[in-house]
């Protein structure tokens, strides 16, 4: 077995699962003020993901750690080249985490209102920047033997922005669906109807993204070479259509599941298209970072594979368990009565 390929797959899976899980927290955070019309609603929204958001973010840390351990050169160049967007992303994630913790620890309207805005911004900015970053990775970074020739403004090219908007819309619909299935009453109904409304622009951005990808990237080359992989984008598109149909049938829970599949499918589509690159060079394919020229030694990959194959299944088991433990819908009464709640 070629461990480079194993780690490429694992790398893609870690990012995909991270976006699937943190996507609904980012999405719910973006819509926090729109969906939550009063303080009670807003507390319900935060508490709906209260027990799990931290665990979701660990997938990002693990994706970063896995990149470092398995593809150190990619890790080094990706993080230093994308310095400023990653910095803003970090600030977002930092502010978001403390906002959840701090918001309800004081009563004042200004205090809570301030943190509410912090939650909205610190959810929107990372969502957008993740999209911009991945869009630019899909289309390639301007790098050659002399190093990096890009800038923050260059990253905000039209394709990068379309990718950013795609992520924002994917997460917004995902988050609205999560709130719909995790809360009750009016809040839940509002979230469900907002998901329906937001689905339309999401579809438009998705179509634009798929079309634009053909011109801005070489992602589709792999699909021409091995059409069997077309099943992944097809599933993504099918699941996206399924979200709306299931919502129409009044089944928000399966619509949320379809939204999970959509996100996994979108990330999968991009990652398959990248293979065997991790970051293509937009200047000269010779300087692309691939799973071969930027990877760790065979020995390190072997050690890391052993660790991953033992611990990742255990992690998945207790993650499923914790989601089942907190599967009940969160109500305003329960949050008000529970003094440990956010």
């Amino acid at each position, binding site marked *: 077995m070629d461990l480079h390929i194993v780690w490429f797959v694992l790398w893609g899976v870690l990012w995909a699962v991270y976006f699937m899980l943190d996507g609904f927290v980012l999405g719910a955070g973006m819509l926090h003020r729109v969906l939550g019309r009063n303080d009670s609603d807003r507390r319900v929204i935060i508490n709906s993901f*209260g*027990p*799990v958001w*931290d*665990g979701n*973010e*660990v997938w990002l*840390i*693990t994706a*970063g*750690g*896995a990149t*470092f*351990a398995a593809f*150190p*050169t990619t*890790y*080094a*160049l*990706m*993080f*230093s*080249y994308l*310095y*400023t967007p*990653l*910095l803003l992303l*970090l600030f977002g*994630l*930092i*502010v978001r*985490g*403390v906002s959840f*913790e*701090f918001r309800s*620890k*004081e*009563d004042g309207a200004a205090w809570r209102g301030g943190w509410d805005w912090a939650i909205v911004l610190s959810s929107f900015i990372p969502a957008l920047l993740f999209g911009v970053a991945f869009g630019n990775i899909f289309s390639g970074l301007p790098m050659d033997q002399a*190093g990096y020739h890009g800038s923050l403004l260059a990253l905000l090219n039209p394709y990068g922005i379309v990718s950013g908007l795609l992520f924002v819309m994917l997460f917004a619909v995902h988050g609205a669906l999560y709130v719909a299935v995790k809360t009750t009453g009016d809040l839940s109904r509002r979230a469900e109807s907002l998901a329906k409304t937001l689905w339309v622009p999401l579809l438009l951005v998705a179509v634009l993204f798929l079309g634009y990808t053909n011109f801005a990237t070489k992602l589709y080359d792999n699909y021409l070479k091995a059409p069997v992989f077309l099943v992944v984008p097809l599933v993504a598109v099918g699941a996206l259509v399924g979200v709306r149909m299931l919502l129409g049938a009044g089944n928000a829970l399966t619509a949320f599941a379809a939204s999970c599949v959509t996100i996994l499918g979108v990330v999968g589509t991009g990652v398959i298209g990248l293979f065997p690159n991790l970051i293509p060079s937009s200047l000269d394919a010779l300087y692309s970072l691939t799973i071969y020229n930027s990877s*760790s*030694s065979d*020995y*390190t990959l072997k*050690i*890391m594979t052993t*660790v*991953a194959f033992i*611990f*990742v299944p255990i*992690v998945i088991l*207790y*993650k499923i368990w*914790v989601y089942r*433990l*907190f599967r009940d819908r969160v109500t305003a009464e329960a949050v008000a*009565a*529970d*003094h*440990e*709640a956010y």
Partner: protein
Amino acid sequence: MDVLTLSRLQFAVTSMFHFIFVPLTLGLSVFVAMVETRYVLTGNEMYKRMAKFWGKLFLINFALGVVTGITLEFQFGMNWAEYSRYVGDIFGAPLAIEATVAFFMESVFIGVWAFGWNKVGRRFHAFSIWMVAIATNLSGLWILLANGWMQHPVGYVLRNGRAEMVDFLALITNPFGLLKFGHQIVSGYTVAAFFVMGISAYHLLKARNREFFKASFTMAAGFALFATIMVAVIGDFHAADVAKTQPAKFAAMEAVWNTCNNAPMHLIAFPDAKNECNLVSALPVPGLLSFLAFHDSNAEIRGITSFPKDERPPVLPVFLSFRLMVGLGTFFIVVAAAAFFLAKNGLLEKYPLFLKLLVLTIPLPYIANQLGWIVSELGRQPWIVYGLMKTSDAVSKSLEMSQVVGSLAGFTLLYGLLGFVDIYLLTKFARKGPEETHVGATGAFGN
């Protein structure tokens, strides 16, 4: 100022800020777990209230520790790309393992603990906080094995223009990393024990919730006595290992300029870096330094002047940090012993001055932790990996001045603000004390 200096400054700011929260997390998780275990064993509701009260402070502190930790992982790539590329093959592994093995466990069970009071049984709830405590300490192990490798690189060969791992077992049994881990976790327990004693003392001085805070104090005093003694014991082994593996750092720690046998320990000293000697050195204890370093009073201690000028760490800050840390550590043992004696004999409230001292002592173990890291990291300079890679070769090549100026300013502002709010909230909830109303099904804290 250049990109290198600013990047170093940024790493110092972000890691020291992160490390305000980590030691308390290490220790308070264990303390809350012990308290809650007592609740399960005795069924005494007071211990449940204790778990909730100290647990609330734990969570406020924990939130900032978690989010500021991501910065450190990202920063290796962002600012230290050459380092990451050169040593990622061996250094990346412990970081990835830390996330996979420890962070998932920690984050999942902290959710169960904070939100699960009514969802899981008593025993399982106590089990959850033990899982958090174990995971937190386990993450410390992996990150210190990573740092231990930077201090004393083992298990690698230089191949393909980089350091490649050839012996994973050597990496995870690196004595430097293991000793540092031991020294660090008990230092974290010290922070937590003094935190609990200090806040308890504050309430005892106000004669509020006396039974509650006496019980908290007494448990913390036992914890403190154990931890402070272990800090010194493991610290002694750790220093001896440093003398062996990093003689330049050891020489700086003790301000030894010239190589000598049967080296004395000067109880009072002050280095003069310019003239490469000590301005003051008084009260020598013959042979003590050689004995401490090699457990042999005749052993040779290498002096700073025996190292090339470009391989010497800055002596003054390393020396002062080390001295101050050791002084504080000694002070903690004395205070912990007194606290334990008074608490066990029910004499606490007879000595309000001692209680006041404990309130004022809360920040000192934090400072001692920071000083220890200054000794460790500054003492390793000019190396980023001791003897293998210089810090000046490690910084990212693609960085521009404006980027690092912006990020350093951003971190300083953001962290300053969040640190201020965090301390405000910690103080608020620490002062408030446990709710008087008896615990119902849902707990006892208002917010």
